[in-house]
């Protein structure tokens, strides 16, 4: 019996290190495994013709290669990205100061909040017919709808961020001699940053979701437009290429913002 003790001891000593490494790696392994399985499943289902018109992964990859070489994928992606960035930037640039003003001044809040609450209940997509009538079918209505979507997501977050600033932090700054202006810049803005970044991530998701629908209004290029057109010709592979591009780009942008969030709000205590 006594002979068995030493190896057991070493096993116990090593265990924490090993589980720590494993628990960090396992999700990644599982993620890749899930992706590969999904791809295989798709290939099998497509090869057996279980779903009508479903292209094989290979056909989709070939189509993607073709769309890359003839430049349509780049043109579409750029067109969609441009709309998302313009609309999103517009929405965020307006939402942050409006949210701050609403949180800081009770009067501004009372004046603006009814509109925010009202428009929040309307899905941005439901406004597309109206914007077409008001703004025509050019780039402006698309950017406006995307802007509205990201504005709504972001304004509430930054407003909430200001409201939730710890009173004792404000008092601590005041007793050290800070004026209202300094308190706003040096306490309220940094304290509200985590909220704003969460709002910006939600807003980005909303913008990206809106762009596809917005491109259904008389666009000449764009990932959403390409899908819409392909569906009338039953070009399933084109639809798949656009869909996957939308998904990958959305994921990439979200990760980028997440990275920025980690960088900017690493000071937060996590419970």
């Amino acid at each position, binding site marked *: 019996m006594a002979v068995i003790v030493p190896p057991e001891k070493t096993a116990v000593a090593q265990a924490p290190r090993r589980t720590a490494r494993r628990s960090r790696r396992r999700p990644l392994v599982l993620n890749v495994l899930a992706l590969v399985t999904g791809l295989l499943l798709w290939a099998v289902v497509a090869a057996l013709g279980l779903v009508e018109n479903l292209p094989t992964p290979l056909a989709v990859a070939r189509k993607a290669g073709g769309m890359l070489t003839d430049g349509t994928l780049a043109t579409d992606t750029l067109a969609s990205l441009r709309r998302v960035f313009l609309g999103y930037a517009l929405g965020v640039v307006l939402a942050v100061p409006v949210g701050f003003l609403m949180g800081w001044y009770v009067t501004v809040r009372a004046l603006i909040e009814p509109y925010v609450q009202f428009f929040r209940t309307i899905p941005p997509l439901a406004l597309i017919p109206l914007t077409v009538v008001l703004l025509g079918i050019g780039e402006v209505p698309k950017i406006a709808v995307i802007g509205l979507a990201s504005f709504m997501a972001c304004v509430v977050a930054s407003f909430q961020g200001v409201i939730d600033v710890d009173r004792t932090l404000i008092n601590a700054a005041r007793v050290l001699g800070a004026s209202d202006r300094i308190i706003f810049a040096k306490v309220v803005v940094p304290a509200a940053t985590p909220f704003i970044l969460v709002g910006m991530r939600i807003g980005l998701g909303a913008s990206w979701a809106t762009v596809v629908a917005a491109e259904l209004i008389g666009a000449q290029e764009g990932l959403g437009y390409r899908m819409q057109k392909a569906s009338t010709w039953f070009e399933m592979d084109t639809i798949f290429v656009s869909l996957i591009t939308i998904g990958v780009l959305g994921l990439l942008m979200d990760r980028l913002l997440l990275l920025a969030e980690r960088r900017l709000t690493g000071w937060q*205590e996590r419970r």
Partner: protein
Amino acid sequence: MTNGTGMNNKISFQGVAKTFPMKGTDFTALDGVSLDIADQEFVTVVGPSGCGKSTLMSMAAGLEAPTAGRVLVDGRPVTGPGPDRGVIFQQYALFPWLTVRQNVEFGLKLASVPAEERHRRADRAIALVGLDEFADALPKTLSGGMKQRCAIARAYAVDPQVLLMDEPFGALDALTRVQLQDQLLATWSREKRTVLFITHDVDEAVYLASRVVVMAARPGRVHRIIDVDLPYPRTEDIRLSAEFRQIRNEVWTSVYHQQPAAPAA
């Protein structure tokens, strides 16, 4: 100092009342509070929770205005916060996005202290509370005791003549609390500031102060003022002495078995 209301009074509450507007009737948090604190005196305030201790301190800090009466510092009515009064809150109130050094320099920056002197003064305050090794750490990496040390250094850095402390050690474990009490007393006897220190811990109140103000609630008022005739520097021997225990018992009784104050002292 010029108006004859009290020659050596650093802080003076004169018939102070504070009511908060509430639904229906107003709520009287403090009524008829008069208290003089001499220059370089260490006064502690104890009393049941809700008796207006924090409100009293907020008025000295200039964060709240009295609804009646006057609060004077250096013989002048308090109109707002000022660098002559340093405040230390129970919840530490460190800026979590700033490092220890940046927190300590916050008030110095606002006072437009030139960079070089600012660093020097911050380093000195940080060293005083023993946080040298953590000067570049973010608050989230500090323990409760270290956070409160940082908050104390932040107040010390601007070199206020008055320290207003609202249950600063209330959230700390007993051991850390005793360490910080001794550190606070050591600094106080060297630099001789006026300290108004609020606590709910009777032992702490007696150990630190030359006078303990016992408050009563509903409405908040001064119930009794008990002199602590124990010499400084306070030591462990004093903390364990019979005299200490006697004063402590007296304070305890007047906090927990409050009868109407005797008409004559």
